[in-house]
């Protein structure tokens, strides 16, 4: 389980516990201020497709923790850990992404993110 600590905007609308979505497919990475948004799709057991939007840090914050605007491409297969909205909407705060090749991308707020350390350098 991850935890949310610091953000430009608070994360009060989101659960403090994560869920992990496997076999998700990247639709789009919106590289924008104040928040980047990862859009992805996932099929449930009956084949029904759900579209999720997961907000993350700003481009400058994500850049500090190793992201690039081209880090994710439409069609990439990912496993993604998110803090889902409390109200059941398919929106979330991003936690952690694992790509098919094993690469890992953390949101700038995620518990293991080096953001808070890096920004001081």
């Amino acid at each position: 389980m991850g935890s949310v600590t610091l953000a430009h905007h608070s994360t009060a609308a989101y659960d403090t516990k994560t869920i992990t979505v496997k076999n998700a497919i990247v639709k789009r990475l919106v590289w924008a201020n104040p928040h980047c948004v990862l859009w992805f799709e996932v099929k449930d057991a009956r084949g029904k497709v759900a579209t999720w939007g997961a907000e993350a840090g700003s481009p400058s914050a994500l850049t500090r923790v190793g992201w690039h605007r081209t880090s994710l491409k439409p069609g990439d297969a990912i496993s993604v850990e998110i803090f889902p909205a409390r109200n059941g909407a398919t929106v979330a705060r991003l936690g952690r992404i694992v790509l098919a090749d094993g690469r890992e991308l953390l949101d700038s707020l995620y518990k293991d993110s080096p953001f808070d350390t890096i920004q001081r350098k």
Partner: protein
Amino acid sequence: MFVCVACGGGGSGSAPPEVPRRDISGVWAGPPLPTLEEPAPFTPAGQARYEANRATWGPKAVGLADSNDPLITCDPLGFPRSVLYETRGFEFVHTPAKTIELLQYQRAWREIWTDGRPLPSDVGGTSPTSLDPRWYGYSVGRWADDYTFVVETTGTDERGWVDYLGRPHSAAAHFEERYRRVDTDTLEVTVTVTDPETYTRPYVAMKQMFVRADNQELEEQLCVPSEAIEYFRTIAAPAGERK
């Protein structure tokens, strides 16, 4: 070769660099959300305005969709919130008559006059000569000693919040910032709020350490209205809907 005449000691180790005198120039880095110091001693009027500000942080935090935080629509941080929130990066530039503070967030700046002029009085008053309140107010600065730069500010637009908890201030508020260069790489920042309309006594809003940034370059950290509107429509509003 560097010679430190005041370092004492005498071992063979390298001497620590001398702390620059009357100089806080350069880029300083800190946390997005600095630690606030003490509970604010509200007057009844201050408490009422605080209750009306629906912050997304703190004990009465609401979701973004229910908040009236001016930042949601990319309004200016304003002062003193610029020193109490989004303090990931700021820079001072000294010139003969004023010190300029460059704020990383929204690429804004403040002018801190050091030419001896007084702070304006009667900002927002009814006299034809009274000045308008401004988001970043009016500031003057002086050196309290060789390592402490003191900034006084007044005339701040009361639409701006003091901090991320939604504490308010009046246009008549007076703020003091003390920038103490503890050593070459460390800056201690203390902010004191004096606003009798809103607080029963002066209180210390923040005492926070900042470090000199290695690369000495501010990032571009913007709230872009068109992107914020899209973010709000697609993420924050659905997350805040009551179902």
